[in-house]
Structure formats: C-alpha cells, structure tokens
C-alpha cells in the first residue's frame, strides 16, 4: 500500500481504510488477532502513535475489540459494520452528486428514475451474458 501525501485524508485515516479492506478481504476473520500498532509502524515505516490512531478508529466503530494484555481482535460483526458504513458514506455521496447534477441540467426527477432503471437493466443484462 502506498500513502498519498496529496490526499486530503490524513495517513491514519488512509491506514484505517486499508485495515478495513483487509477485513473485507477476510485476511482477518472474526476473533482473529489484528496487527499491533508496532507491527503496523514497522510495516509502513510510520510513527507508532499514528498507527495507534488508526486502530482506535476501528475500536470506536466496534470493528475491533480489546483483550487486556493480548492486543486487539476482530469483532464478529466487523464485516457488517464496515459494509454498512461504506454504503452510508460512499453511496450517499454519489447519490447526492447525481441529484445535484440532475438539477443543474434540469432533468426532471421521473427521467432520473428512468435513467437509474435503464442503468440497472443494462448492468443485469451484462451479468447474464457473462
């Protein structure tokens, strides 16, 4: 993984997203031990305090839980939490963008719905052909 210095997201947010992706890819399953902040610091050559911040984000979102003296582990609902969080954030932003652009181009709402339906039909057609 490469960090994007120009990104408006701080390193610890980028790292938190990378960790979430690792959980989605099932590199870490429920009740498995997550990397420690020192392992992450070593892995990416970053300050351990920065790595600690990323882990705290996941801890606050109930993606990880702490076992005293043993480290951090993946919760059983981790995947669902990440999926619903991503859905709420990313999809909502995209939908807002579509609605804004439609208003700018004076596309009536019904036409927008039709466009979405057509896009869905095309997508399903594509999947069937495969």
């Amino acid at each position, binding site marked *: 993984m490469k960090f994007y210095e120009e990104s408006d997201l701080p390193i610890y947010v980028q790292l938190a997203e990378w960790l979430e992706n690792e959980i989605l890819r099932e590199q870490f399953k429920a009740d498995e031990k997550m990397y420690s902040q020192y392992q992450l610091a*070593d892995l*990416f050559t970053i*300050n351990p305090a920065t790595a600690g911040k990323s882990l705290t984000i996941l801890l606050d979102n109930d993606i990880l839980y702490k076992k005293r003296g043993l480290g951090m582990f993946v919760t059983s609902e981790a995947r669902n939490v990440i999926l619903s969080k991503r859905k709420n954030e990313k999809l909502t932003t995209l939908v807002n963008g579509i609605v804004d652009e439609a208003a700018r181009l004076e596309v009536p709402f019904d036409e927008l719905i039709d466009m979405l339906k057509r896009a869905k039909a095309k997508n399903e057609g594509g999947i069937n052909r495969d």
Partner: protein
Amino acid sequence: MIECKNVLKKYRRHTALEDFHCSIQENTITGVIGRNGAGKSTFMKLVAGYLKKSQGEVVVMGENPFTSLKVSANTIMIDDNMSLPISLTLGELLQSFALFYPNWNDSLANELMAYFKLSPKMYVQNLSKGMRSTFHAIIGFAARCPLTIYDEPTTGMDSAVRKDFYRALLKDYLAFPRTILLSSHHLEEIENLLEDVLIIHNQKAFMHLSISELKESVVAVKGSKVEVDRFVSMHEKLDYNETIPGTVMAVVKVSQYVHRENFPQLTFINLTANEAFIYLTDSQEGGIDRVFERNELV
C-alpha cells in the same frame, strides 16, 4: 522530558531565540522544522547543554542541561560539526563512545558499519560528506540515549542511504523507545515518522502540532473573485493570486477545521505538509519574484 519557558539566547548582539516556549513529551519523535537561520540548531544545542541560555528556563529530565552530568550522560546530539579526533580510526572512535554511553550496543554499531560499507580501519577525515553523516548516524543509533538529537543528520547522504536511515531510525525507536528530536529540510521525507512537529519561525516556537493538524491549518482555494474574497476575509491570508482576471487562488491559515462541503462554490486544493509549512513561514508576500520585479524598474 523537555520544558522551555521564555527562553532568550543571544550571540553577542544577534538574537538567535527569544520568547521561546515549548514542552516535549518523553518517548516521542518530534520533527524540528524551520527555515534557514530560524533558530533550530540553537534550540537543539540549548537542550543538549552545548550552549548556555541568556535568559529564561530550559529544563531537561528535570535539570538544567548546561550544568547537569545526568543530562550529559543521557543525551547525544548528532550533527555535521561533531568534533572527532582525527588520530583515531572509526573502530577506535566507536570503542571510546562505548565507554561513555552505558546503553551502547556494540553489535548494532558493527553491523551498521558493515551494511553501510564503512571499514573500522578508516579515518574520519578521509570520509566523504555522506559517509561522514552516515558514521555520525550510526553513533546516534548505537548510543541508545534516552534523549537523541539529530540536527540535519542526512546532509550529503544519497537518497538510498537516506531511506535506509529513516527506516533504521524507526526500527531502532520501536525496539528501544526514546525521545528523539529530528530536524530536516525534507519534511516530506520524515513526516510519516513524526508524532509531532515543532515549527520554529523568526526565533520563536511558532507552532507545535501533529502533521495532520499542520495540513488542516492551511487551506488553499480557487474560484471566482467574489467567493474567494468572502472566504479569505474570514481567515488569515497567506497568499493571494489573481492569475486570470476574475479567478483567484488564495491560501489562508485557519483556526479550526474547514468543512469543504460548506463551500460548494470553491475548489479546494490539497497541500502537502511541506507546502503548508512553506506558506506559514513565508514572510515576503509575492516571494522571490517581487525582488526581481523591483530590480527591473531601476
């Protein structure tokens, strides 16, 4: 670990630091950054006990570093001007350092020497600039001092060696946590290593914050003159350019986080930590171009 209160340092009539305050926590890596002549080295030398303050209070490990043996035994400062005896070989130099520093790690020193292709039989005065810096850095790693100060340790090192140096610094910090001060002109190379940055500007401690806070404190926007002017009027202006009539690019310092979605008419430009630092410490509006413009008029 380090407390400075109202510190003044004068070299005869020249003021190097004034009204200087800072507080640095134990076992953190702090980047000390500033433009040339801002007072970085003076600050570091005061902390190491190499210089005597003119006024104010410098406290390191609970003592005055200038007169404290405890600070002297637990501190090492690495810079270009380390005066090492020219009659001793590198190997002999390492042995004498081992006598002074109780935590000295001999095998680490030897392995780093071998890795960077430095022979213990060589002499300091025969080393190239980059190799000499590398040798100094090795002393800094092996000494394992609770307070380790690197003043521009990478001068003269090629980019591959610099990369190895940063990696080694972090690895060694993870294995043996300690308080590290690191100054460099390449903020983009060290920013990920740092917990905090201390910006020294105009002889004062200008800001002490984390890298992400530094990035958030400077905002660059582009847009129509009316909209940009309205945004600029709410903040401290750092740079202002009307490149195309009616379209303005401006850089401002903000006191709290700006939510971009609140300003849909403006385009926000992402700045790196280094760019943010340069804008914050640029005293001359218009920069170098202004000097040449004035000269052409004469």
